C-alpha cells in the first residue's frame, strides 16, 4: 500500500498505512500527551487527553487510536483542545489524593506531568472523592486504588499481553474500580505476578513492593542489561542507587521483550544484594571453611592442579563451565581447561537439557538451535508446542505464542501430558502418555503421508532419504498410535491437517521431549515432520528448541563441550587443532573429553581426581544426587566458583566468590542466538571478582599466562577464532543485541 499524507500543525509528512495520528506526531516531534496508551496494547482511546482536532471530523479524535487517512489535516494545539485536555486533567485530580510528596511515582507520573503542564494543583470540583484504598495483602504488587485513574492499562495488559485475566473493571459510574473476582487478594486469582500491570500503570496506583521507600526512579542510575534467568534473554533496565538494585524495568523499544517481563526478571533480583553472597575466597582447613586471600586461594589451586596433572596426567582433571556465565567466561573457561590444564574434560549442564537437541538438529539441519527467531512466531499460521510449558518456563516467548494465537488467529496444537496454560488456548490438546512422543509425531506424519499433504517439491529439492522415512511411517497408523499414546485418531487427524496445511507452521519444543532416553529421536522426528511439509526455511515456520538457561546457547557456542571448541570446531580435527594451537600458543589435547555424566562417573571410580566447577550446582541439577555426592567426596581436590554457598560448594576444598550478572560486563546468547550485552550496574560485592579474572589468574598461576583487561578484550579474541562470532563486536551489538 502506498504512503499516506498527513499534515500536523503545518508539518507535512507521509506515514505508512496503519500508523496512528500519535505515531505521525512523534515522527515530526509534536508532543501529544497520553495516559491510557501503551504501545504494547490495542488502541483503547479512553482517557481522552490525546484528543486532537481533525479537519472535517464531527468531534475531536483520540490521536492514540485514530488511524491516519490520506490527506488528513490535524491540529494538536488549538484552544479547544487545550481546554478539553485541561478539563480531563482537572476531572482526574478532582478524585485524586495528589500525595506527590510521598508517592513512589513522583517525577515519573503521567498525571503529575499533565497537572504540572496545565498548572492545576487543585480542582474546582468539590465533590466526593474516593477514600484511601490501599490493598496490602498482595505479594510483589502494591495496589493504591485511590491513585488509580482507571486508564485500564493494567486490565488490558493482563488480558491482551499476559493472557492471565486476573483483574477487570468492576461496578459502574463513579464506583468503577479495577478489582479481582470478589475483591480478594491477587493471591487467589489467576495473577502470575509478572508485574506487567505495574510496568504499564502511568501513575502511582501500582507499585513494585520491593521498591517501596528505596528511592524514586529519577534518583536511580539506569543500566541496560540482560535478564539472568531463562534463555529468552529479555532486556532489563536495572535501576540502582549506590550498589543496591532498587527496581527493575524494561524499556518499551528494546530487545526481545519490548517492555514485557515475567515475575523472575522483574522481581527476582534480590539475590544480587543478598547478605548470603560469598564475599571472599574460602579454603577448607580441617573440614572447616576459613577466609583466605585471593593469592592464597589461587596458588593453592595451582599447586594442587599441577600436582594432580603431573602425577596422573591432565585427564585426571575436569571442569564444569556454566550456562549462567557470559560468553567471555565460557570461552575463557574452556580455553583454560584445554590450554592451561591440557584436557578436553570440559562440559556443562546443556548435557542434561538440550544435548539431544543439539545432536538431533545438527544431524538434521547441520546446526542445533532455533531455526527461526522469536519475533517470527507472530507470522506463524499454526504453532505446534510439544514438551514445553512455555508460559511458565519461557514466559515472554509464551506471550508471543499466545498473542499469535489470540490476535493473529494462529492455530495452536499442544502435545503435552499435562494440562498447562497453553492448553486453554489450544485448538487441539493431545495428552499423550509420557514417553510416546515419537509415536504421536509418527502418527501425524503417517496421516500427512496418506493424505498427500506433504510438500513434494521441498522434499525433492532439499531432503534426502524420504523413502526411508516412508517405510518407518507405514506402521504408525492412527489406530496403532492411539493404542500407544492414548491420543485419539481424530485429534491426530485434525492436528495433521492443521500443521500440514496452515501455510506456515512452527514447532516449539523444550525439555519435555529432550530429557528422555529417546530425546534425540524425538527431536529428529520433529525435524522430519517439518521437512516433509516444507515448514523450514520460511517466515513463521521452523523447528524451535527453547533453551533453558540464560546463556546455555552461548556456553555451547563457546565450546564448553568436551568434543568441540568454540563455534563447534571439532576437537581432534587437524585443521582445528592447528588453528587453536597457533592462537593459544600451546599444544592441545587431541581426544574429546568426558561429559558431565562421565566426569562424575569417573570421579566416583577415582579416575578424575581434580574438578573445577564454575557456576554450576551438580548436587541439585544432576541426576542421582547420592551418586554425585559420592563422586564429589572421592575427589582429591574440588574448586567451586560461585556466588553462593551451594549444595556443591560445601564439598569444595577451595571456594572462589564470583559475580552476579549485575556486577559485570560481557555477553549472553539467547535461545534464538541473539548475542546481547550485559553491563555492570553496581560494584562487586566484598572481595568477589569477575569470573573471567579469576580464571585468568588461576591459569597464570598454573603457568599459562592469561592477561585480559576487560570482557571486551576477550570478545575480540572470540571474534578472531570463532567464525560464527567473527563480527559480533560490542560496538555492533550495543543497541540491537545482534
Amino acid at each position, binding site marked *: 500500500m502506498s504512503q499516506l499524507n498527513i499534515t500536523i500543525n503545518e508539518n507535512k509528512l507521509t506515514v505508512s498505512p496503519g500508523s496512528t495520528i500519535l505515531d505521525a506526531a512523534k515522527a515530526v516531534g509534536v508532543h501529544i500527551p497520553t495516559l491510557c496508551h501503551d504501545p504494547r496494547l490495542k488502541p483503547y*482511546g479512553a482517557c481522552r487527553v490525546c*484528543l486532537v482536532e481533525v479537519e472535517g471530523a464531527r468531534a475531536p479524535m483520540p490521536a492514540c487510536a485514530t488511524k491516519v487517512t490520506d490527506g488528513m489535516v490535524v491540529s494538536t494545539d488549538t484552544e479547544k483542545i487545550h481546554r*478539553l485536555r485541561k*478539563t*480531563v486533567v482537572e476531572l482526574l485530580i478532582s*478524585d485524586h489524593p495528589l500525595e506527590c510528596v510521598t508517592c513512589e511515582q513522583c517525577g515519573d507520573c503521567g498525571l503529575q506531568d499533565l497537572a504540572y503542564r496545565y498548572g492545576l494543583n487543585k480542582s474546582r470540583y468539590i465533590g466526593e472523592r474516593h477514600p484511601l484504598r490501599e490493598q496490602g495483602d498482595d505479594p510483589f504488587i502494591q495496589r493504591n486504588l485511590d491513585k488509580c485513574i*482507571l486508564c485500564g492499562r493494567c486490565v488490558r495488559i493482563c488480558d491482551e499481553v499476559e493472557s492471565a485475566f486476573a483483574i477487570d*473493571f468492576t461496578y*459502574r*459510574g463513579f464506583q468503577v474500580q479495577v478489582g479481582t473476582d470478589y475483591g480478594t487478594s491477587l493471591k487467589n486469582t489467576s495473577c502470575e505476578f509478572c508485574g506487567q500491570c505495574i510496568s504499564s500503570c502511568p501513575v502511582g496506583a501500582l507499585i513494585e513492593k520491593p521498591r517501596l521507600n528505596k528511592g524514586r526512579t529519577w534518583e536511580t542510575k539506569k543500566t541496560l542489561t540482560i535478564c539472568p534467568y531463562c534463555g529468552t534473554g529479555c532486556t532489563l533496565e536495572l535501576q540502582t542507587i549506590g550498589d543496591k538494585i532498587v527496581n527493575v524495568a524494561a524499556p518499551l523499544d528494546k530487545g526481545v521483550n519490548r517492555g514485557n517481563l515475567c515475575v523472575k526478571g522483574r522481581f527476582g533480583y534480590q539475590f544480587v544484594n543478598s547478605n548470603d553472597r560469598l564475599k571472599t575466597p574460602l579454603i577448607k582447613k580441617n573440614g572447616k571453611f576459613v577466609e583466605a586471600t585471593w593469592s592464597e586461594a589461587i596458588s593453592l589451586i595451582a599447586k594442587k592442579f599441577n600436582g594432580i596433572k603431573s602425577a596422573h596426567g591432565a585427564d585426571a582433571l575436569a571442569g564444569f563451565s556454566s550456562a549462567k556465565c557470559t560468553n567471555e567466561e565460557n570461552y575463557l573457561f574452556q580455553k583454560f581447561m584445554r590450554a592451561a590444564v591440557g584436557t578436553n574434560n570440559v562440559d556443562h549442564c546443556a548435557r542434561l537439557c538440550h544435548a539431544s537437541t543439539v545432536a538431533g538438529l545438527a544431524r538434521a539441519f547441520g546446526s542445533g538451535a532455533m531455526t527461526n527467531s522469536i519475533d517470527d512466531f507472530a507470522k506463524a499460521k499454526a504453532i505446534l508446542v510439544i514438551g514445553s510449558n512455555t508460559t511458565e518456563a519461557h514466559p515472554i516467548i509464551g506471550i508471543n505464542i499466545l498473542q499469535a494465537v489470540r490476535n493473529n488467529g494462529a492455530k495452536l496444537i499442544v502435545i503435552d501430558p499435562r494440562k498447562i496454560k497453553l492448553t486453554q488456548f489450544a485448538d487441539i490438546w493431545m495428552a499423550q502418555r509420557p514417553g510416546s512422543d515419537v509415536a504421536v509425531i509418527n502418527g501425524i506424519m503417517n496421516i500427512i503421508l496418506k493424505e498427500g499433504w506433504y510438500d513434494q517439491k521441498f522434499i525433492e529439492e532439499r531432503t534426502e532419504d524420504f523413502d526411508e522415512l516412508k517405510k518407518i511411517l507405514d506402521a504408525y497408523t492412527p489406530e496403532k498410535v492411539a493404542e500407544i499414546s492414548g491420543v485419539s485418531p481424530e485429534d491426530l487427524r485434525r492436528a495433521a491437517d492443521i500443521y500440514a496445511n496452515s501455510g506456515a507452521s512452527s514447532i516449539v519444543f523444550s525439555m519435555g521431549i529432550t530429557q528422555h532416553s529417546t530425546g534425540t529421536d524425538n527431536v529428529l522426528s520433529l525435524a522430519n515432520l517439518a521437512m516433509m511439509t516444507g515448514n523450514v526455511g520460511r517466515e513463521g515456520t521452523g523447528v524451535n528448541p527453547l533453551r533453558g538457561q540464560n546463556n546455555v546457547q552461548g556456553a555451547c557456542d563457546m565450546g564448553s563441550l568436551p568434543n568441540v571448541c568454540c563455534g563447534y570446531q571439532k576437537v581432534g580435527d587437524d585443521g582445528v587443532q592447528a588453528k587453536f594451537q597457533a592462537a593459544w600458543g600451546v599444544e592441545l589435547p587431541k581426544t574429546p573429553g568426558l561429559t558431565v555424566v562421565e566426569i562424575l562417573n569417573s570421579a566416583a571410580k577415582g579416575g578424575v581426581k581434580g574438578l573445577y566447577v564454575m557456576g554450576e550446582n551438580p548436587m541439585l541439577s544432576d541426576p542421582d544426587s547420592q551418586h554425585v555426592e559420592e563422586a564429589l567426596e572421592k575427589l582429591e581436590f574440588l574448586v567451586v566458583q560461585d556466588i553462593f554457598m551451594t549444595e556443591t560448594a560445601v564439598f569444595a576444598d577451595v571456594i572462589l566468590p564470583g559475580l552476579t550478572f549485575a556486577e559485570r560486563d560481557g555477553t549472553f546468547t539467547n535461545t534464538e542466538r541473539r548475542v546481547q550485552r550485559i553491563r555492570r550496574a553496581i560494584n562487586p560485592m566484598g572481595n568477589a571478582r569477575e569470573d573471567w579474572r579469576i580464571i585468568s589468574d588461576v591459569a597464570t598461576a598454573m603457568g599459562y599466562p592469561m592477561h585480559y583487561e576487560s570482557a571486551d578484550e576477550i570478545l575480540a579474541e572470540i571474534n578472531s577464532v570463532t567464525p560464527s562470532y567473527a563480527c559480533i563486536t560490542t560496538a555492533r551489538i550495543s543497541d540491537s543485541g545482534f
Partner: protein
Amino acid sequence: MNKKKTNTTNTNTEVIVGLGSCGLAAGAGDVFDALADEMKKNGVDARLKKTGCIGLCYKEVLIDIISDGVKVSYGNVTPAMAARIVKEHLVEGRPVDEWIIFKKDVVSGENTFLKDQKRIVLRKCGLIDPEDIEEAIAKGGYEAIKKVLSENSPDEVVAIVKESGLRGRGGAGFTTGLKWEFTRKAEGDQKYIICNADEGDPGAYMDRSVLESDPHAVLEGMLIAGYAISADQGYIYCRAEYPLAIKRLNIGIEQARAKGLLGKNILGHDFNFDITIKQGAGAFVCGEETALMASIEGKRGMPRLKPPFPVISGLWEKPTCINNVETLANISWIILNGAAEYAAIGTERSKGNKVFALTGKIERSGLVEVPMGITLREIIFDIGGGIKDGGTFKAVQIGGPTGGCLPEDFLDTYVDYDSLTKTGATMGSGGMVILDESTCMVDLAKFFMSFAQSESCGKCVPCRLGTKRMLEILERITQGIASAEELDLLESLAVDVKMSSLCGLGQTAPNPILTTIKYFRDEYLSHIHDKTCPAKVCVDLIDVVINQDLCRQCAVCIKHCPVQAISGARHEYTVIDPDACIGCRMCISVCPWNTIDVDSPKQLIVPAEKYRRPVNKENVAESVRCKADESRGGGA
C-alpha cells in the same frame, strides 16, 4: 334469554384481552380468567383470545369485543366488570355504554388517540395472539420473506430498504439500507445480524410492546436482513427485565422453526438462518452497539472506539449489522407495500412512522405511532389530549434520559431527526415525557444526570467523572448552596463532556443540562440567587406548612406522613418539622380540608392545589366520621 339466538350471535364474535406487560400489571390475567368463567357460566361460545399491547396504556386492562366487523373496546376493566360485560354485551347484545372507550361511531378521546395514528410497526399489535404464529400468518406475517426469497436477490432487498429511506430507530438514525449495504459488501465469510432489544431508556417501552405483541414482525425483519446481508445467524439481545418478551420470542422462534421459517433451507430456498436470544443484565450502556457486542461475547459491556464499525468488524470481529427492534419491525411492511409507499410517509429526510411512548403529565399516555414530520403539538395535544388534569404545558423531554427538554416555544417543531437535533434534543429511541409546571427543571436535569452517572461504564474520563461532577453541582444548586460561578462551570463542563466522551452515552448525557440551562435559565438562577425552587419541588428549598387557621385537627396527615415529621394528635394543632420533612407531599394529598401548602422561600408561584390528588372519598368519609364520632361520643 334465548340460548339459541345467543349462540348464533357469538360464534363470529371475538373477545380479545390485552395481555402485554402493562395489561398484566393492571390485572389482565384475572380479567381474562373472570371473562372465561362468566362466558362458561352463561354458555357464551364467543372466542376468548389473548393479544399484546394495544397502546392505550393509561386505560389498561383493555378488552376488545369484535362482532360482525364492529369493534367495541372497554377500558380500565376489572374482574368485577366481567359479569356485566358478558351478560349485557355478549348475551343480550347491549354493549355497556358507560365503560366503552372506543367504538366505530362513538367520538371519544381514545377514538382520536387511535384514529390519528397510522400504524405500520404496531400494525398487528393488539390484533393477534402473539403466541400463535398462525394468527400472525393469517394477517400477512412471513409473506415478505416468502416474497423476497422467490422474487428478489439480496442486492435488490438492500436497494428496496435503501429506497424506502428507513433510518434506524435505536437513536442514531443511520440509514438502514446503507448499513445493510456496508455489511453486505464487507469482507468475511461469516456475518451476523443483531436485533438490539435492550431498550434501556427508563420510560420507553416501544420495543417491549412490539416484542410482546407481534414478535413475528421482528423475526421476519431479521430473516429479511439476514438474507440481504448473507448472514446465517441472528442474535436478539433482550434485556432480562423483559421476561414476557423473551418468552414470546422463544415461542415465536420455536414455532417459526417448526414451520421451516427458521433453520436450514428456509421455505425450500438455499437460505439458512437461525436466531439465538441473549439476555442483557440491565445496563443502559449495553444498548450501545459495541458494548452490546462485547456483552454477547461474554466480556464486560463497555463501548469501544469506532472505527472499526460493526459493519466491518463487529461480533467476534465479523461484519455485523445491528438494528433496533422497531427498525426491523418496519421491514416486512416495506417489502410488501413497496419502498415508494413507505417513502411517501414522513419528511424529506425522515421517512415513515415513529413510535413514541407518551408518558408524564399527559391526559392519554401510551404508545403512539405517528408519521414523521408531525408536530410536537399534534402529538401532545391532539393525540395525547393535552396536559393531565387541566394543567399547563411546561416542557417535553424527548429522546430518553440523555435527550433534551423543549419548552412551549418549540411545540410546533416537526418531529423528524434533523429538526429535533437542531433544538438540542434528539429523537432518541422515542421516549416522550410531558411535563407541566409542577416539574422543576433543575431537579429534572439532576434526575437524568444521576441516571447517566450511575450507568456510565467508567471507561472514559469525561463521562465517568464529568457526569459525577455535573450531578454534584446540580445537587448543590437544588440545595441552594451553589454559586453563580458553579452554573458557568456546569455549563462549560457539560459542553466539554459532550465533545470529548467516547461513546453516545457521554456524548448525550449533558443534553438535559444544556437544554434546561438554555431554555429555563431563570429557574437555575432562582435556585442560586433567591434560594427558591419556583416549581416547589426541591426539598431543601421548600417548606410544607399547615395553615393552622383552617386545620380541623383530624390528624389524618400524621397517620400518612411516611417519616413521622408531623407532630400533634387529634384535637390538637398539627405541626410539620421542616428538618424531618422530605417534601413528599403525602400530607397535602390526604388532608381533607386543603389546609396544607408548600412554600418555597420568598416566592409562591404555583398554587398548592397542583399537588393535590383529587380528594380521596374514603379519606373524607373517614374523617367526617371522625368528627361525627367526636361530636357524638367525644364526651362519653
